[in-house]
C-alpha cells in the first residue's frame, strides 16, 4: 500500500449528507426538501428523468449552486460549501457530464490547473505527470500525460476527468451521467475503475437514467421526480420495473408499436459520400446507404463520428467532396436546401435551438419557416396572416404543443415543446424523405414517447426515414435496419432482429462487421 500513499493524500470522508435541500430557480422548484447521504465504500445512485433535479442537487454538493434551504454535513459536521474549491477541500470531487477540459492543453496541464506547485510560482508539470502515472496504475486509468486533450478519445477524456478529481484527493466522487457518451465496451472499463475505487474506500454518487447500470453498480438508489424525492431503497429491494415506475411517476414500459409495413423502392441512396467536417479534416470517408420507402434506417454511433455532417450533406447544408445522393432515383447532389425541401425532404436537425428554430421568432413564424413563400401562407410577395394563424392553431392542437399563444417567442417554450413544434413543421409538410437527427435528445420520457410515435407513423405512410441517434434503445425500438457509423465509415448494417447490444457495441467501437445486403 506504500504506492497509494505517495500517489495521493486522500482527504478521508466517511459520510457526506445533505438534509432538506431546497433550491428555487425563477419559476421552478428544482429541489424540494431532498435528503441524500453516501458513505465510504458504497455506490449510491441518483435516478431520475431530465429535469428531475439530479444535477441541481449535485451542483449544490459541489458548491456550484447555493441551496435556499437545508444543510450539508461532512463526517457528521455541518459545513458550508461556497465554491468548488470548498468542496474539494472537503474531499468532494465531481466528474462532469460535459467534460471540463481544455482541448488545447495537455493531460498534465489540465490536471495541474489551479493546484499549488511544488516550485512556488513555476509550474511543476514533470512532477505532476509522474504522479498521474502512479494514480493511473492504481485505478486502471491508462493515459499518456503528455498528450494534448484534443487528441484523446471520449473514453480517454473521461479518464482525465476522473484523474483530475482523484489527484485532488477526493474521496467522494460525484459522477454525472458518466456512461452517456461511452460505447458499451468503454462502460465496462469505467465500471472496473469504479469497483476499484469502492474497494479503496471511496464513496461514489452515480447519476444516471439507465436502469440496468444503476442495478449493476449501486448499493442504494434514490429516485427523484420533478424536484421531489420519490424514495430511497437498497438495491436488494429494487428491480428495473419498480425503478422505472418510480422515475416517471406511473407504471411505464417504453414501447412503440412496430407493425409490419410494405416496403417500396429505394428512395434515399448515398453512394461513396465523402465530406470535410467543421475542423477541415475529412469526417465522412465513403458512406454508402440505401433506404427504401416505408423503412426506418437507424444510424447508431458514439457522438462525433460524422453523424451530424452526414445529415447536413443530405439536407444540402454541407457540400460533399465526393459521392452522390439520390432521392427517389434523382441525383440531388449539390442541390440547394430550398430545392430539396420542394422535392419532399424534411430534416429534423440535432441542434434544435441553433439549426432548427429561431428563438426570438413566434410559434407561428417558426412553424411556417420552410414554406412561407408558398400558398396558403403567401399571396405573391405578401404573407397571408389569416391562413398562417389558422394553420398554426391547427398544428399546435394536433401536435399538442404547450404554448400560451401562437405569438409566443419559442425560446420561452420547453425543449419538448420546441421539438414537437419542429416535428409538426417537418411532418405537416408531407415529406417523402425524412432525416431525423437525435430527435429525442434531452426530452423527458413523455415527450420522447410522443416524438417516437409520430416518427413511426410516417413509416406507415411510406416515408423513407433516416434516424440518427446515440440512444441505442431508440434505435432498437424504431428501426427496421440499423447501420453503425465510426469515424466517418459505416461499420455494418444489421436487420432489427439480428441487432444486439453486443454486436452494435462492437461496431460503435470501430469493429467492421461482414453484413450481407
Amino acid at each position, binding site marked *: 500500500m506504500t504506492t497509494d500513499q505517495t500517489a495521493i493524500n486522500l482527504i478521508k470522508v466517511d459520510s457526506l449528507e445533505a438534509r432538506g435541500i431546497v433550491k428555487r430557480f425563477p419559476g421552478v422548484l428544482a429541489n424540494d426538501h431532498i435528503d441524500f447521504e453516501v458513505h465510504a465504500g458504497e455506490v449510491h445512485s441518483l435516478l431520475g428523468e431530465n429535469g428531475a433535479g439530479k444535477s441541481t442537487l449535485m451542483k449544490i454538493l*459541489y458548491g456550484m*449552486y447555493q441551496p435556499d434551504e437545508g444543510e450539508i454535513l461532512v463526517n457528521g459536521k455541518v459545513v458550508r460549501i461556497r*465554491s*468548488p474549491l470548498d468542496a474539494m477541500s472537503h474531499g468532494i470531487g465531481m466528474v462532469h457530464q460535459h467534460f*471540463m477540459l*481544455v482541448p488545447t492543453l495537455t493531460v498534465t496541464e489540465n490536471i*495541474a490547473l*489551479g493546484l499549488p506547485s511544488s516550485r512556488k*510560482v*513555476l509550474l511543476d508539470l514533470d512532477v505532476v505527470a509522474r504522479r498521474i502515472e502512479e494514480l493511473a496504475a492504481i485505478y486502471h486509468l491508462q493515459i499518456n500525460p503528455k498528450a494534448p486533450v484534443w487528441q484523446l478519445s471520449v473514453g480517454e477524456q473521461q479518464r482525465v476527468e476522473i484523474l483530475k478529481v482523484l489527484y485532488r484527493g477526493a474521496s467522494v466522487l460525484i459522477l454525472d451521467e458518466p456512461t452517456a457518451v461511452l460505447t458499451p465496451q468503454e462502460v465496462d472499463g469505467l465500471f472496473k475503475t469504479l469497483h476499484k475505487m469502492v474497494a479503496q474506500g471511496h464513496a461514489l454518487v452515480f447519476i444516471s437514467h439507465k436502469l440496468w447500470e444503476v442495478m449493476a453498480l449501486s448499493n442504494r438508489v434514490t429516485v427523484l421526480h420533478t424536484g421531489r424525492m420519490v424514495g430511497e431503497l437498497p438495491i436488494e429491494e429494487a428491480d428495473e420495473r419498480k425503478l422505472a415506475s418510480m422515475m416517471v411517476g406511473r407504471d411505464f414500459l417504453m414501447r412503440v408499436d412496430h407493425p409490419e409495413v410494405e416496403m417500396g423502392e429505394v428512395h434515399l441512396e448515398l453512394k461513396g459520400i465523402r465530406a470535410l467536417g467543421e475542423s477541415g479534416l475529412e469526417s465522412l470517408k465513403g458512406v454508402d446507404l440505401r433506404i427504401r420507402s416505408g423503412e426506418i434506417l437507424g444510424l447508431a454511433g458514439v457522438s462525433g463520428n460524422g453523424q451530424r455532417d452526414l445529415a447536413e450533406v443530405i439536407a444540402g447544408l454541407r457540400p460533399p467532396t465526393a459521392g452522390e445522393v439520390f432521392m427517389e432515383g434523382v441525383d440531388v447532389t449539390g442541390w440547394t436546401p430550398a430545392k430539396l425541401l420542394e422535392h419532399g425532404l424534411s430534416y429534423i436537425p440535432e441542434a434544435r435551438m441553433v439549426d432548427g428554430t429561431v428563438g426570438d421568432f413566434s410559434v407561428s413564424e417558426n412553424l411556417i419557416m420552410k414554406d412561407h413563400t408558398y400558398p396558403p401562407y403567401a399571396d405573391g410577395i405578401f404573407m397571408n396572416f389569416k391562413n398562417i394563424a389558422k394553420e398554426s392553431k391547427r398544428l399546435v392542437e394536433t401536435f399538442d404543443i404547450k404554448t400560451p399563444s401562437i405569438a409566443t417567442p419559442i425560446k420561452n417554450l420547453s425543449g419538448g415543446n420546441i421539438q414537437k413544434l419542429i416535428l409538426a413543421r417537418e411532418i405537416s409538410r408531407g415529406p417523402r424523405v425524412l432525416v431525423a437527427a437525435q430527435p429525442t435528445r434531452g426530452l423527458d420520457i413523455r415527450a420522447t414517447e410522443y416524438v417516437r410515435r409520430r416518427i413511426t407513423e410516417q413509416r406507415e405512410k411510406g416515408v423513407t426515414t433516416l434516424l440518427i441517434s446515440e440512444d441505442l434503445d431508440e434505435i432498437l425500438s424504431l428501426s427496421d435496419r440499423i447501420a453503425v457509423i465510426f469515424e466517418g465509415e459505416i461499420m455494418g448494417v444489421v436487420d432489427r432482429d439480428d441487432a444486439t447490444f453486443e454486436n452494435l457495441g462492437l461496431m460503435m467501437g470501430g469493429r467492421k462487421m461482414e453484413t450481407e445486403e
Partner: protein
Amino acid sequence: MDQILTYTFIAGLLAATIRMSIPLIFGTLGELFNERSGVLNLGIEGIMTLGAMAAFVGTYLTGSLLVGVIAAIVCGMILSILMAFLTVTLGLSQHVSGIGVTFFGTGVSYYIYRLIVGTPKVPPIVDPFQVIRIPILSDIPLIGEAFFSQYLLVYIAFLSIPAAYWVLFKTSLGLKIRTCGENPAAADTMGVNVSGTRYLSLIIGGGLIGLGGAFLTIAQNNMFTFGTVAGRGWVCIALIVFANWKPGKVLLGALLFSLIDAFQLRLPMLGLHIPYQIFLMLPYLITIVMLVLVARKASYPAAMLKSYSREE
C-alpha cells in the same frame, strides 16, 4: 536605388524600425494577456492615449521621467479596471465596452491635458529619455546603432517578450490565465477564480499598454499632441492575430510593421513623384494583406468574447 543602399540610409532605417516597434510590442503584449484570459480589449486605443498623456503630464509637472512612467502604468491599469468591471463583473458585450473605453480614455486624456497645460501657442516639451549606448556592442557596425544605442524603454520592451512567455507558459498563473481564455467553466470547477484571474490579466495588460503610450511622449517624442497614438492600438489588435497569440511572433509582427512604416517615411526623401498619402497607406494595406493570409488559420482563445457566470 543608390540612395537606398547607402550605409546611413540602412542604419537609420533599422534604428527607426526598432524605435517605432516599441509601442506596438508593449501594446500587443498587453492585449495578449487580455485576450489569453478571454477578454478582447478594444479599449486599447484609449488606454494607450491615457498612458501617453499621463507619462507626459507626470514628467512635465515633476521633471522626473520615472514619475511619468509610473503614471502611465498606473493610469493604464485603472482604465483597465473599468474595462474589467464592464465585461467581467457586469458581463457586458466586450466589443461595445471596449469602444466605449477607447472614447472615454481618449476624451479624458485630452481634457486633463487641457486642464493642466492649457492652450499655449507652442506646445510644451519635456526632457525625454536619452539614448543609452551599451559599451562595445554599440560599436558593431549597423546592428550596434539599431539595437544597442537605444532608450531604456527599448531594452525593457525586448526583455518583456521572454518575460511574457515565461509568465504565460511556465507559471501556474499563466496556466490559469490560458484556461480562463479557453474554458472558464473548467477553470471554475478546478477552483480557479475566473473573475479574479481575468481582472488580473486586464490589469497586467493595461499596465503594458499604458507603458506603450508612455514611449510615444517621453522617449520617441518629447510632447503630447492630440492624435499621438494615431491608431497604434488598432494595429496591436491586428498584430495579435498575426502573432497567433504567441509572444515570440508578437516581436516578428511588430518589427515587420515598423519596418514598412519606417521605410514609407523615408520614401518621399527619394524624390519620387507620388502623393505621400499613398506611402502613408502602405503599412496598413500590408497589414490587411497579411491578415487575409494568416487570419483564416488563426486559433482564437475559445472563450474570447464570452462572459462567464456560474448559475445560468
